[in-house]
């Protein structure tokens, strides 16, 4: 997480204050029409992924349970419990299910920057 000023990119959006985030409890945000799920973990790091759960088609990832598999911080879907890496969005546990038609199994990850106590999401940097 490098501190980049909010003005560095025109696609970057200030979402909320860092203090608004409760450790390990996700929130959803609307960023340029996209739904983004944002997580502040116990170690202070902040991660953002698509809010859409590819396996159910519902926009609910922000309401999943955070955790880890090995050293990788994870988020589990609240609907069918697939587990995804918060680092690169890879689906680590498919629960023997396939994603809904038209969806990739992995989540899109959005870069998060913190500036002056504010959480900034940049859609353009997604992978």
């Amino acid at each position, binding site marked *: 997480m490098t501190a980049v000023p909010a003005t560095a990119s025109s696609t970057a959006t200030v979402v909320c204050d860092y203090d608004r985030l409760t450790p*390990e409890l996700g929130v959803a945000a609307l960023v340029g029409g996209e739904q983004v799920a944002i997580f502040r973990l116990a170690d202070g790091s902040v991660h953002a992924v698509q809010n859409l759960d590819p396996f159910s088609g519902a926009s609910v990832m922000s309401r999943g349970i955070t955790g880890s598999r090995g050293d990788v911080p994870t988020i589990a879907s609240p609907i069918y419990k697939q587990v995804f890496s918060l680092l690169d969005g890879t689906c680590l546990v498919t629960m023997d299910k396939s994603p809904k038609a038209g969806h990739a199994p992995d989540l899109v990850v959005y870069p998060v920057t913190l500036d002056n106590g504010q959480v900034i999401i940049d859609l353009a940097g997604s992978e």
Partner: protein
Amino acid sequence: MTTEHIVVVGGGMVAHRFTEALRARDTEGRYSVEVLAEEPRAPYDRVALTSYFQLKSPEELQLGDPALWHDPLVTLHRDTRATGVDRDRRIVTVDGGREVAYDHLVLATGSYAWAPPTPGADLPGVFMYRTVDDVAALRGWVEERRAALGRPVRGAVIGGGLLGLEAAGALQSLGAISTVIQFADRLMNLQVDEGGGEALKRLIEALGVTVRCSTATQEIRAGKDGHVGSLLFADGGEQLVDVVVFATGVRPRDELGAKAGLEIGARGGVVVDDACLTADPAVSAIGEVACIQGACLGLIAPGNTMAEIAVDRLLGGSSTFPGADMATKLKLLGVDVASFGDAFATTPGALEMVYADPVNGVYKKLVLTDDATTLLGGVLVGDASAYASLRPMVGAALPGDPAAWILPEGSVEKGEIELPDSAGVCSCNNVSAGAIRDAVNHEGCHDLGAVKACTKAGTSCGSCLPLVKKIMGTELEKSGIEVSNALCEHFELSRAQLFNAIKVAEVTTFSEVIERFGTGRGCDICKPTVGSILASLYNAHVLGGDRAALQDTNDRVMANMQKDGTYSVVPRVPGGEILPEHLILIGQIAQDYGLYTKITGGQRIDLFGARLEQLPSIWKRLVDAGMESGHAYGKSLRTVKSCVGSTWCRYGVQDSVGMAIALELRYRGLRSPHKLKLGVSGCARECAEARGKDVGVIATDKGWNVYVGGNGGFTPVHAQLLVEDVPDDEVFRVIDRYLMYYIRTADRLQRTAPWQQEHEGGLDRIREIVVEDSLGLGEELDAHMARHIDSYEDEWKAVLNDPERLKQFTSFVNAPDQADPTLAYVEQRGQRRPATPEERAGGAVLIAPSTLEVRS
């Protein structure tokens, strides 16, 4: 060593097994394999074809690891039909004239669906049921006709065997009305006897399928539009239809073999010996196309066996075909039918032992030797739960009284069975008990996944899985290998151990728990478990402290998440008794928020489709009127179901409603390893179905009988009597202790029924502990429950009073006034429901969430 080239004609299930087994065992790479498949896709699971209707894409039917087809020694040609074989030149010709040379040829061309010659069988709207393309076309047709006709499509399946019933179920799942036309005098006449056929018919009809037995179809007639219109029967009857499926049997695709001059069996099929070889040593035939020991076998198990034999022979082995196990189990949702061994008691002197309960559509028959000891076969209709255990016992003596296997659960004690090593456990994949033991003891397979991967047991129809698991467990126990009870990668402890550890250490937060007893950050398995244990122990608010992040999907917001991410709210209605003004309030809330309403199976009213941010204002309406939201979520008390009881009912002997209310208020909010349901009936007529509950209380002239360990759901079990004729206060005391003891010692997600069954010494031992207090735990359990009852708080109201917790009930952190824009609904029967992906794509009339704002 030079590589020899094998050509397999046919890309079906058996071709797949052959290729997979060859590549697994031919470690030196002696052979390369080329598979010529007529269908446009890689081999798939034909046995599971009917599940196509529930699947998103045909890929889900894929067999095994797709990496097989990328193996450098394997080539798969799809859309490629073999048209001729020149055995002298060892060449196969394919469509278009290309020639493929072989050193060894394997015919695995399977069967085709056969239909009796019937005028009109070629009309549009008549289907076969064999391939993915068949079922895809069938689905397309039904959907198109429904749209064109504007009414449910009328379907008929000709053929009432295994396949016909599956197809009828499939038609129904497509929303069509379905009728089964059976030529024989009963359904599944090849597998079940007359009594079984009767019971089966009743079960099938209960699904809404019409059954016509002893009916010959003479002609299929076109309607005015040139599509199928009606069926004409030999007895002069006629039936209107929009779609017809033939499921009248299969015939081997032996045309290539015949053309190549190979011997063909009297009823078709390429004749092979017990090594699966034809008279030409360079040609084998396996699967349904092979005529082995005089017959073609239409099941996957013998096909897989033949594939394994062919591979073994190519690698220099000497295995031979052992004969086929023709045991079958119908895979139709909701209907249990199985037949195995000598189901028709054709063995001289065979005895038949029959149990029939026509009212409930249960028919069970065991066929035994004349001394009534050795099992020869059987038919199970309506309840085939004993199939997995009994089938492998064919030919062996049943321990104890054989009647125990067919009488209702619990009426006679069952003997313990220890299967001989040679007993087949998984018939689909031909895996014996010995092979499973071997995998556990010598291959290091210590969990179900490993045993499945190593032996293939349980990987096809899955009906043997309970048995596989049991054998594995017994072996592990015998060899002293500890069956890992670890919760997950973060905790080595089992739930019961962790419960004790937390209790003794008196820790109250997840961070302390994982620091002391675990590793890492936790996950979606251990977090909710710890959350539940903390709640059972301290009964503090589920969203308080650091606990919100531990809660599973529903507990986290104290409502049930639905498929589209909205929630349902189920107001608590203790004992099912409700004031008219509360009924009106519930209706009013539903109207104001546009919620879908439904009466639940638990005597209350469910309101569906509330968005996260709407939950607090809905709860407030309930709280203000003296109600509360209820737990339809949470591993906690759900409902206490009651019958009307002595206050109104002319038979009632106690106030069952009063008792139910008292119990619901006593245990509401109690967190436990799995959900808890109670029921109270006012007399032995048992209108509240209390014995289907974790705890059932049934009124007697002298007091109450308390039953425990009942379960509905996937494996229904009736509750067993714990104490008899006790007064009210004793009812509470016994249940307090039973529940608390369960909460402390059960496994994660283990309901009372399996807990009680697996508890050392069973219910008798539990009775000693909770009723006779043999461990001296009684007082502690009482005190623990008293603490729970005293500290109960309305958890929804608590959130309303806490601005911090309320913040979580926001749609978007940066746009709290906007609703999830992806929600979309359509109207159905006067209420709204989530739109399907097709409806969204097709732009069907959608009700967007913005129109659902609160009207007040």
